[in-house]
């Protein structure tokens, strides 16, 4: 397999001539030329430290502080971590909450569950689209045009896209009207909107494009000659997919899944709009506790969300070594 990936690709991404050795030599040997690195990185580095590193570190610090009448006061308190993990009656075999994780852990759990379901659906819905664009459409011009056509909705506000489901899925929405008209149901079904179903539909519609992009790019990089060769040697379409297309598009799948995973884990707006605030995601819990000025607990929740995300990303990266594959 390693030989295959070293081949010169003629796909969408690899279409430019490979840099010759001279150019690489030139890049390496004159490192003292160009603008001074310090000046190039300093402004952005300061910005990143002040507005990314400091807020993240301060969340960790604030999660140990205490609430006081004057606001936050510095302390080293594990009170809010306890509140997060511990439920009354957890160790009591007679209580009905015996060994039941706290509501916060369950919320995080259901957020992870929703995210995984949506990721899987995005993969199932999106992969054939990426495959179609990369493999079935021949001309590069058409590939790009059809791909951009998929991308257009992504450039509009996702709040708008979430609320746009109302005329479709609502009680008097198009789908209910169609069901009534066809005589399938007698009265409008309400499970479509303000429900898990509507929420998942909206999430897939909003985020599937994020997966299609990377999958399309990695599929487009596959050299068509390899597929031709495999066919000539008698491989069935399924074998070609399992042995060549599948493995070679895996990095794209992984990157796409990371994008979707990260987006949906922190998601809260769609949940409020489409789910009608009936449910909580990890994101809405954080905002609720910020709203009632319980900052340390909001910080604990945020850290646990971050922890779950890091674990998820590490697991995905375990499956594929993206840096090697790029």
């Amino acid at each position, binding site marked *: 397999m390693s030989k295959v990936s070293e081949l010169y690709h003629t796909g969408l991404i690899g279409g430019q001539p490979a840099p010759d050795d001279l150019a690489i030599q030139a890049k390496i040997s004159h490192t003292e030329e160009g603008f001074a690195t310090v000046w190039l990185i300093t402004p952005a580095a300061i*910005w990143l430290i002040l507005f990314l590193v400091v807020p993240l570190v*301060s969340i960790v610090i604030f999660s140990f502080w205490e609430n006081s009448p004057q606001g936050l006061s510095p302390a080293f308190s594990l009170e809010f971590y306890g509140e997060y993990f511990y439920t009354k009656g957890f160790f009591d075999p007679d209580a009905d909450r015996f060994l039941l994780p706290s509501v916060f852990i369950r919320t995080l759990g259901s957020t992870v569950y929703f995210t995984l379901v949506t990721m899987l659906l995005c993969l199932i819905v999106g992969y*054939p689209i990426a495959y179609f664009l990369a493999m079935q459409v021949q001309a590069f011009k058409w590939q790009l045009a059809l791909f951009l056509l998929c991308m257009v909705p992504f450039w509009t506000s996702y709040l708008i896209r979430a609320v746009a489901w109302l005329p479709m899925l609502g009680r008097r929405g198009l789908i209910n009207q169609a069901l009534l008209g066809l005589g399938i149901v007698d009265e409008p079904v309400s499970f479509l909107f303000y429900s898990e179903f509507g929420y998942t539909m909206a999430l897939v519609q909003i985020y599937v*494009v994020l997966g299609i992009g990377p999958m399309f790019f990695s599929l487009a990089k596959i050299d068509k000659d390899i597929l031709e060769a495999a066919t000539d040697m008698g491989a069935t379409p399924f074998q070609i997919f399992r042995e060549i297309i599948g493995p070679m598009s895996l990095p794209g799948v992984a990157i796409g899944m990371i994008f979707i995973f990260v987006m949906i884990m922190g998601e809260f707006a769609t949940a409020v709009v489409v789910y009608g605030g009936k449910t909580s995601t990890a*994101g809405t819990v954080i905002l609720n506790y910020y709203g009632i000025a319980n900052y340390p607990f909001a910080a604990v929740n945020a850290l646990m969300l971050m922890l779950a995300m890091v674990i998820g990303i590490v697991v995905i990266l375990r499956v594929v070594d993206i840096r090697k594959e790029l």
Partner: protein
Amino acid sequence: MARRTPERWRKLRVKTGFSIYYVIFLLFIYGPMFAMFVLSFQGQRGGTSFPMRGFSLYWWNKLLEPSTVGDMQGAMGRSIILALMVMVLTALFSTMLAMAFRKSFLFSNVLFYTILTGLMVPGVLLSLGMAILLRQLGLAPAWYTSGLAVHVIWALPFGYLVMMAVFNRFDSRLEEAARDMGADEWTVFKEVTFPLITPGVVAAGLFGFTLSYDEFARTTLLAGAQNTLPLDINASMTQRIRPTLFALGTASTLFSLLMISIFLGIYTILYRRSR
């Protein structure tokens, strides 16, 4: 040749199947937005679902009138100004960073992962961290300060990756030639490097603009007293949803598309010129 004919038929069938699936997919992602677009022209007595009760511009007019809740024109103006600021900073920072990464330097790995952290951190988390921090420091958040700060953090990884890709394909020998002919660093940048990377810089800026214009999670705790457009949309959603919202959605979508077309136009012209 006779043996290949069934094979050709099979391929055609597969292709047709995929094409049909693609069309269904387009209906799936465009359908709701199209329904919203049609319903924004709902008659005055109509609601947020079909059937249409007449056809009017009533809800569009409502959008233009100053309303009691929020002020949408103001919010839109603020969002555009903010997006333009993010655009400029993203283009500038990502170009500078990508230029620095052409050479190896100390802690370059740390910097690389810090930039990408901006992509990985959930918006609500960064928003929360900044908001609590500002509160502790006794500073008031505002869309043009704290909002701008985290929007740039969000857009920077995208722009940076674009610029890295641009410099990966960059032929340094052009710069070498200019230096050999006695040009100083500024002249090399102005006359050789910049004209060649302009399409990339524009693309990085486009990412900055669109990501900031639609950003909700990162602004939600940090916009201060005045709303940006996504916050305003969200505020109007918590009340009874009316076709005005659909009109707003359609307007905002059309504006996004207009901006992207302008950018793509500029990009195409610059790309042709840089060839």
